Every structure is written in structure tokens, then in C-alpha cells.
């Protein structure tokens, strides 16, 4: 079980220490960890699970803040990591972000949260809805309230009713002035396109995100028009398993606010919305690079925020790249990014230029991988469609909203 949690700033300073068991973990472990992180050069590359001379450390890094947990006994590693991720999520939720200053300004709240999230090294509750009822977030509203009511405590006076209810993620009687529920399909496309332009791998990882502001104990059912395309699904604990198993219907009592109802994976897609055609030719110490980007399979909506990133090989001495659309940036560490923005309907954006190689090199043998970012509003590229959303147990008919969004996940194109 976890023995201690440390929060380190991006300069290695201990911002917070929470001892969990009787075996006190000395702070020197952080010094050891930080030296290790420095010697690895890039803390990003450091393993999430590290064996120090005295402890096993779990670490995750979020926005420059390192969450470090120590243990001396065997335990499920994913439990440690998953827990730290939840702590980070909850802190972001509470503090409206995550950085050194926010944590230092609100460390009392962080302590309070940790106190409720883990006891004696074993995770208790990480459900944001429950925590929010035990410890009020430090937002302007609560500050206002405290001024008006004179109650300066940021702790609610009542224990969350949910701890005793059979729907632990929801308070017993919620009241909203206007009842509304929004369902978003958010998809990420992962793809690898080979140097011959062949789609080596194309997959969608998607989430059904729900934002619910409903009174009482509403019972929702959500069904898809084509659930058979889903390859694998994972559910929020509120989803009832049987209706899904028999009819592929999501039946649930939602938590209040935003939550991830379901995540899914769809394999073996046949098309990408974009094509990216890089071409590299070398001759006598200089290489010519050209990249063409265009719409391959029109999704029917505009493709936005298109950016192409790549890393020039170290043997390139200088590069001169220009584009007919958007801007090209080359940083000192030889990372290039070509921001295209929205793809114009009338022309295909292209970027080209020359790379001067280090002296003595005839041609390039090391090639960059092109990573592509894009965002398409209003469409789920997997083709998944929501059929209908039914709500029961509601005093008044609610407003229902649906949206969809697809963006690039790991979308990579190998050089031709």
C-alpha cells in the first residue's frame, strides 16, 4: 500500500507531503528522485515505476507538477498510477488547473482532499461528485457565499448523502432550475500511413461525454444506431451491464455534472479525412523536401486546426521551408511545425524547401516522421451515431443536446 505522497514542483521542490502510514518516509527520497530525474536528462522519459534503494516510486507528471507515491511492498502497479492520475484529475477539477502557484495557494484544500481520498495507504473515494460535497471547491461562488452568509467554512456541513445511497456517484435530491443534458461524441483518430501511402493502421478511440444537470433521480437510456461497429467498450460505473449485454443500450442514472459515460475503440477504418504526402529527394549535399496536404475523404464538415509537425534529422545543417498556405516554424532544436489552419476548398496547401546537410554528407539516410493534427467539428469519423436518448423520472421535460467532434490522435505519416 502507498506510504507517502509527495507533490514536487518543476524545480524539484517539495510542495506537499502527505504521510499515509506509520512508516514515515523521509523527504530525502525526493532528493534522490530528483537527481535521478536530472541524470536521465528528460524527466518525461523517466519510468512511471522506479525502484529507489529504499522504496518503489510511482510517478506521474502533470503540467510540470510531479506526483510521487512511495511504497515498500508489492502492490498492483496500476492501482498506484491510476490513483495518482485521479488525484491529478481531482486537483485540476478543484483548482481549475494545475501549477505550482495554484497548489501553494490552496495547499490546505489539497491536504483535505488527500485526506478523504486515501486512508492508511488505501484509496477510499476518488469520485469528484462525492468529494465536491465533502469539500467545497475554492471558487468565486463559494467565496461570495461565505461573505454573504458569514459562513467562512469551505466544508459543507452535511456529509454527502451519497455515501449512504445506492447510487454512490449521485446526491440523493438534486434540484436544478432548468433541466438539461448534453451528450458529446469525442473521437480521436490514430493512424499510420506508410511511405507508399498505404494506410498501415487506422483506429478510433472515442468517448461519450455527458454533461448532465437534471433534478431528482433521473433514469436515462441512450442507444446507438449502429452499436455493432464498436470493438471494445468501457463504462462509467453508473452504466448497467445487462441492458448493454442484451440490447446494446446504455441505461444509467447519471452523476451530476460532466463525466465520461463510456469509452470505445473502433478498429480497421478504411479512410482518413486527410492525405499528407511528404517527398524527400537528396542530391549532392542538399535535400529537397515537399509536403502536400489535402482532403482525401471529405467528411462533409470543415477540417480545422491542421498542423504538421516533424523533427529534422540532426545531420541537417540548415533548412529553408516555405508554404503557400499557413506558416512554417523551425525551432532551434530542429522541430518544425507547419500550421495550416483550415484547409481551403479551392487549393491544396503545400510546403517545400531545401535542407542543407552537414558537410561530407551526400544524402539523407534518416527520415523524419510527420505527425498531423486536425480537428473536425460536428462529425464522428467512426460513423457511430446516437439513435435516441430517453429520460425517465423527471419532473419536467429536459433540454437534450448532442454534439460530435473528431480530432487527430497519433496520426503519423512516414516519409516517401
Amino acid at each position, binding site marked *: 500500500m502507498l506510504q507517502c505522497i509527495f507533490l514536487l514542483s518543476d524545480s524539484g521542490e517539495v510542495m506537499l507531503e502527505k504521510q499515509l502510514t506509520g512508516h514515515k518516509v523521509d523527504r530525502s527520497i525526493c532528493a534522490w528522485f530528483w537527481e535521478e530525474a536530472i541524470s536521465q536528462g528528460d524527466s518525461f*522519459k523517466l519510468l512511471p515505476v522506479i525502484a529507489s534503494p529504499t522504496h518503489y516510486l510511482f510517478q506521474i507528471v502533470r503540467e510540470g507538477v510531479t506526483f510521487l507515491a512511495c511504497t515498500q511492498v508489492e502492490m498492483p502497479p496500476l492501482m498506484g498510477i491510476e*490513483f495518482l492520475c485521479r488525484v491529478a484529475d481531482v486537483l485540476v477539477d478543484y483548482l481549475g488547473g494545475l501549477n505550482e502557484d495554484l497548489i501553494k495557494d490552496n495547499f490546505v484544500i489539497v491536504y483535505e482532499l488527500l485526506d478523504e481520498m486515501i486512508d492508511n495507504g488505501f484509496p477510499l473515494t476518488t469520485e469528484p461528485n462525492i468529494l465536491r460535497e465533502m469539500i467545497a471547491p475554492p471558487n468565486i461562488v463559494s467565496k461570495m457565499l461565505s461573505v454573504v452568509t458569514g459562513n467562512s467554512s469551505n466544508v459543507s456541513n452535511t456529509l454527502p448523502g451519497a455515501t449512504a445511497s445506492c447510487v454512490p456517484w449521485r446526491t440523493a435530491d438534486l434540484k436544478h432550475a432548468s433541466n438539461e443534458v448534453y451528450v458529446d461524441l469525442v473521437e480521436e483518430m490514430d493512424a499510420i500511413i506508410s511511405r507508399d501511402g498505404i494506410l498501415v493502421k487506422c483506429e478510433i478511440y472515442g468517448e461519450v461525454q455527458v454533461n448532465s444537470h437534471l433534478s431528482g433521480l433521473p433514469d436515462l437510456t441512450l442507444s446507438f444506431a449502429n452499436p455493432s461497429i464498436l470493438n471494445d467498450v468501457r463504462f462509467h460505473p453508473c452504466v448497467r451491464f445487462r441492458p448493454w449485454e442484451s440490447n446494446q443500450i446504455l441505461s444509467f442514472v447519471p452523476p451530476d455534472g460532466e463525466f465520461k459515460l463510456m469509452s470505445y475503440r473502433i478498429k480497421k477504418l478504411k479512410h482518413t479525412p486527410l492525405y499528407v504526402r511528404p517527398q524527400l529527394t537528396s542530391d549532392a549535399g542538399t535535400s529537397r523536401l515537399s509536403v502536400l496536404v489535402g482532403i482525401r475523404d471529405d467528411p462533409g464538415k470543415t477540417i480545422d486546426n491542421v498542423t504538421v509537425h516533424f523533427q529534422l534529422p540532426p545531420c541537417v545543417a540548415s533548412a529553408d521551408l516555405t508554404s503557400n498556405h499557413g506558416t512554417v516554424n523551425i525551432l532551434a532544436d530542429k522541430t518544425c511545425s507547419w500550421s495550416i489552419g483550415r484547409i481551403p476548398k479551392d487549393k491544396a496547401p503545400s510546403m517545400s524547401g531545401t535542407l542543407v546537410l552537414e558537410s561530407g554528407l551526400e544524402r539523407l539516410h534518416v527520415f523524419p516522421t510527420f505527425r498531423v493534427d486536425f480537428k473536425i467539428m460536428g462529425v464522428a469519423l467512426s460513423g457511430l451515431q446516437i439513435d435516441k436518448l430517453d429520460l425517465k423520472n423527471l419532473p419536467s421535460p429536459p433540454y437534450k443536446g448532442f454534439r460530435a467532434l473528431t480530432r487527430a490522435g497519433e496520426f503519423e505519416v512516414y516519409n516517401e
Partner: protein
Amino acid sequence: MAPPALPQKSPSPSQPSGKGEVADLKIQLRQHAGSRAPGADDAKRELFKKVISYMTIGVDVSSLFSEMVMCSATSDIVLKKMCYLYVGNYAKGNPDLALLTINFLQKDCRDEDPMIRGLALRSLCSLRLANLVEYLVGPLGSGLKDNNSYVRTVAAIGVLKLYHISAATCVDADFPSTLKALLLKDSDAQVVANCLSALQEIWSLEAATSEEASREREALLSKPVIYYLLNRIKEFNEWAQCLVLDLVVKYIPSDSNEIFDIMNLLEDRLQHANGAVVLATIKVFLHLTLSMTDVHQQVYERIKAPLLTLVSSGSQEQSYAVLSHLHLLVMRAPMLFSSDYKHFYCQYNEPSYVKKLKLEMLTAVANESNTYEIVTELCEYAANVDVPIARESIRAVGKIALQQYDVNAIVDRLLQFLEMEKDYVTAETLVLVKDLLRKYPQWSHDCIAVVGNISSKNVQEPKAKAALIWMLGEYSQDMLDAPYILESLIENWDDEHSAEVRLHLLTAILKCFFKRPPETQKALGAALAAGLADSHQDVHDRALFYYRLLQYNVSVAESVVNPPKQAVSVFADTQSSEIKDRIFDEFNSLSVIYQKPSYMFTDKEHRGPFEFSEDLGSLSVGVESADTVSPAQRVEASDNDLLLSTSEKEESRGPSNNGSAYSAPVYDGSSISMAASQTQSVPTFQNQALPAYTPQAILAIDDLLGLGPSVAPAPAAAPPPSPPPLKLNPKAVIDPSTFQRKWGQLSVSLSKEISMGSKGAAALTTPQVLLRHMQGHSIQCIASGGQAPNFKFFFYAQKAEEPAAFYLVECVVNTFSSKAQIKFKAEDQSTNHAFSALFQSALSTLGMS
């Protein structure tokens, strides 16, 4: 990245240096202590916040303890929380002052607000002070009966905290059975989960001493309890589900129907949003079906999708942990994953530890149908900007080639790598081509043609250079200018820094000489001369050896240095299948991440043996051997000490004891049997013709055989008057901490150095040999370590029918000099000599069976 600014070393200017600010705070706290004025709470809050923030950045504010306690009489819950936090942090250092807090904590435990009751109880239990234990029992007892589930949740864990402070108090108050009652009937799932986690820990710690506790621990795994928990599993939160699933893994179902019932019940857990739950469920599935081959395979198919989804969702850290588990499964059953190879393709942005795992999986799943695509993908990485991964990818291509799939295409690819003219690519490829040629000599023509074109000047890495030189030597008949390349390398002998390369150079030039003597003779002479003058011992020795071999007989030399070779069919696997199985058993644990079974790394961590091993590690390896062992070796030896194998483990594998008090099966052919002898004897007749009874007498026989200790164990003092023949308890048990305590308390009663005899020393290849041997003599080992030639053991034995009389032995063996240094400590001084004799006789018979 910013330079390391360690707070301890370089406090930033804004940080308080301590003294002044703390004193200031003290005064302010005093001012507010008794104030009930409106707004006092707000002022206190600011002060408390300051104190806590100092505490957080590491400034010692423990001197404010009494002031903080004084200020803690408040109804403001935030103030309370900060105060609890402060008190919890500094109570250990101020046990007397902490007593002051008890009063208000106890009062809070009776507050009408359940939130405050719970918080106070948690803080009270978190003080962890032995002198406050008596104040804990009451609040805990009422906490467990509280009508609010939040308080019960806190109380259940509080019992565990109390147990760690004072086990006796906890057991006397009968808390474990209260917890058990709660476990089986509480309406709140979190209370049930906390009871379970507390009980598991308490009973497994108690089980060492109490049979009832071990029965209770077993009872947790009984069908009714397991079924009760499984039926409620959906009520538990995700973390509690992990706990329950972890318990279910240990449950042994009675028949296959039960197995299917459990799996049906848990199947939807595979779709849980929390990865930890998914992995815990997978572990249950895998373990339940271990003995059902078909179903086990279906389980693999079933868990594949959730695992792959987990990898692609979540953060990088999570996906690494999942990937490690996937890696384990892929390595166990690669064919089941062969169609999913695309999931193991690396993404540019992934950290290199993830890419490495993926490359290994790609290598494992390669088969006839997907090799082409996998190798094509790997070749992309080889040409990529990420150099370490490019190297790994080339190695992966090589490994796939060695697995014998579509070698044709792969060899072409490898040869293309050589044409890329990237030094690291060339280097890695050369090493691979060498291995490939050892397995598929038929490719030598194609490879040699390309390798011959590589200028040795472009190859700098020792491993690659050695590989190139090996090929030059091995295929010198096919490579026209092999002798001349080797010759030029030999000319630059002094510039060659790697001894490995120089060794290879010597061997290669000799092989070349056998094939093309006239062209090579001069270079060979130069190489041998340079080798003889080399400062590296191995190089010098090899040169000398070749020189003498050649002097003796050239054809013999050829048969030694360049015998006809058989193609290697399988390269040795680095990890034994036994270890792999063991890791598999520990699925969903750190073992999987480290790719080592947990006994290889956690043993040192468990409290008892760990402290002990530190102690052991700090002891010198022995006076005599200390001179001969280089520091590096000594470090290694003490490193191994950390991987102690404790006696319990050995017991299960060691030979079963036949129950006789002392048997010497090796040499009792005629009439010697210690166990049978009940007559009293005086152990002074060392040369008695048929010595039957005493340990010393046995030693005398050993001496006659010339195998025993060369130094007769003549006790310096007169032997004690008629000691009874020493009978040892064959099933003596002592736990490491007790051993360590006794070892610390007792003084060395006897210390000697004996010779073991060459046979004994020769048999002692691993510590386990001696360990088992001594076990046959009712002498148990509690810790062993070291590496040939130095081993170190701690033994213990117990006099039969006298539980108090333990004998403790430290034994340092040097197998090289066949000497053993032994230190005896005994609780019963009167029989100490008898025991030492017995021990030595047992030791001397090692290697004779």
C-alpha cells in the same frame, strides 16, 4: 530543465530561514489562543495556514506545538483540519505534548456532526503514539458502532492503525471480531471494504503466532465470505473492488461450475472505466482457469480487447503499466496476439520505455503471416531520428531473423542497413549479421560481399568492431583483402582501447593464418608480439597461449582455435521459464513491471529480513578473505546478501526431515547412530576404535578418512562433565527478527576456523547446497548469501525438548581455500561445545553424499 534546486540545500530567498518567523508566529498564536471575539477564527485561520505552509516546505515548526493545541478549541472545521494535520505531523516528536490534544480530539469524537466525529477519530488514530493507546480504545469502540457509515469507515481503518501501534491492545479489545461482524453485515460497502483490508492485514500478521488467527485468515477465503463479497461487488467503489478481486484470486473453487459462475459474475468488470479493476479482474480470470487449457485460451481471447483498449486510452503512465502486463501475456502466448501486431507499432511521441516494450512484443508475435509487415515497420524505425530506438529496431529485426521466419527478405533488409552509412546503424547491423551467420552459415556469401565493402575505419563501437573482426577471421578465405584489413588493424594496436576487440583481433588473425598462411604470417607475428606486450592480462594470456600452442604443433593449434563449427540452432534464452511462470503468478504486481519475480526485489523490503540483511551486509566478509577479495567483489557479495533466501522458503524445497533427532546417513553403515544411542558418554575418547556416540568421535572418523577438518576441534577448556548427547529439534523455527535480536544479545561463545576438505568445498557451488545439507542435520539456515568463492550463512538450531536453548552460528566459507570461519553463539552455554562439534562434523560431511 531547470537545475535541481533542492529545498534542503538551497532555500530560496523567499523561504523563511526559520527562527524569526516562527517566534513571531508563536506570539501571534498566543494572542489569539483564548480569543472568542468575532473574526478570531479568521485570524487563526491565516496563522494556521502560515504554520502549515512552513511545515510543508520543510521548516521545523514543532516548537509551536503547545500554542497550536491551545488555539485548537474552535468550532471551525477548517481550523480543526489544519490543526489535526499539524498534530499528526509533529505528535511523534512530542509525545508528552500530544497528550494535550487527546482531550479535544476525544471531545470531537463525540461531536454531533458525523463529519467531525470521523475526522477526529482519524486524527486520533493517526497520532501513532504508544503512550496514547489507552485513549484510543473507547472512541474506536463507539466509532465502530456509530450510526453514520462515514465514522464506521474511519473506525475500521483506525483499528488497523491501533494494531500497528499496539497489537495486544487491539486484540484484547476484541476489535478483530467486531470488524468481522461488520464485514459480514454492514450496509455500507465502504465499511465492508475497510474491514476487509484491516482484517487481512491483522490476521496475516497474527497468523505467525496464533493458530486462531490463521484459521480466521483462511475463513476469509471460505466460500460463504467470497460469495458474499462477490454478490455485493457492484456496491463497492472501484478501489474496494480491486481489494475484493485480489482476495478472490486466492480462492480455490471446488469445481468448474463455480469457476464459470465467478467468471460470469465478474465479466462486466472487464469493461470498468478504472484500469486497476480491469487488471485485477484479468488476474482472477487467468488464475481460475490455469488448469483448464481450453478455457484459459478463451480467457486470453476475451481479455485481449480490454487490454488493448486500456493501452490506447488513459495517460502514458497508465498505458505503460498495462503494456507491461500485455507484454507478459504476449511473451507467454505470442501466437494468440499475432493478428494484433499493429497495436504494437510505435508512435513517434511515445517515451522510449514504451517503445522498447512494443519492439519486444513485435519480435515475439512475428510469424509467417506477418513477418513481412512487421519487418517493414521496424525498418521505418531504423531510419528514424530517434537513435536509441533505431538501434533497438535493428536488433529486433535480427531477433526475428533468428526466429527463422522469412530469413530471405530479412537478410536483404539487414544488408540494406549497412548501405545506409549511419555509424550506429552499421554497428548494430554488424553485430546482427555475425549472429545470423552463426545460425545460417549458408548466407555467408551474400553477407560477406557486403561486409567486405565496409571500411573498418567507419566502425568504432567495440561490439561492432569485434563482430567485424570475427567475420574477417571466420571468412577470410572468401574475403580477398581480409589479411590486409586485419594487418592494418594490428598496426594500430595501440590505438585500440577495447580489450574485447584486441582479443578478437588475436583470434581472427590466427584463424586467417590457418587459411592463408603466406599472406598473414607477418601480421600474426606482429599481433602476437603486440599481444604479449599488452597491459591487459587476458590479452596477454591469450597471446602467450596462442604463441605456445603454435610452437607446440600448428595442426593442434588449428583444431583448437578454428575447429569446424556447427550452426547454432537456438541462442540461449536469458530468462528461465521458471522465472517467467513465477512472474505470471504475480500478475498485476510490480513484478511484471520489473520483469522479475517479487522475491528477487521485495524480500529486502519486508521489515524483518530487511533490517537483518542490512546488518548482514555491513558485516565484513571475513578476516581472511577480506584481503583476497577486491572491493568490487565485496560489493557484489553484499548485494547478493540483499537477496536473502529465508529458511521458510528452503524448507519447502529441502529434503524432508525424517524426524530422527540426529541422523548421519552418510557414514553410519555399521553401527553409528546418534539417535539410537541413549547411553551417556564422555567425549574425550577421541581415538576410540568404534566411536559411536559423540560428535567428536565422528569427527575422528572423518579425520581417518582424510576428509574431515584438519584442525581437530579440541575444546580449549576441559569438556563439561558428562554432557548428555546433544539432540536437536528437527523442526526448529525462529523468525528473522528474533534471530537478529538474539544474535545481538549473545556474545560469541566460540569462534574457529576450520578446513572443509576439498570435496566439501567443491560441492559448494551455491549456498543452497550447504543449506540443504545442514538441514538434514537439523540445523536450519535463516539467511545466506554471497557468490563463489565467498559464501556467508547464518544457521540456527534448537535443542530438542528445550525450546529456550537456541544455537546461532555465523559461517563464512571460502571455497577457494576450503576454509570456513565459524562463530557460535549459544543460549545454553553448557552444551555449546557439543553443538559446535556437531556442527563441524555436519559441515565436514558436505560433498560426501
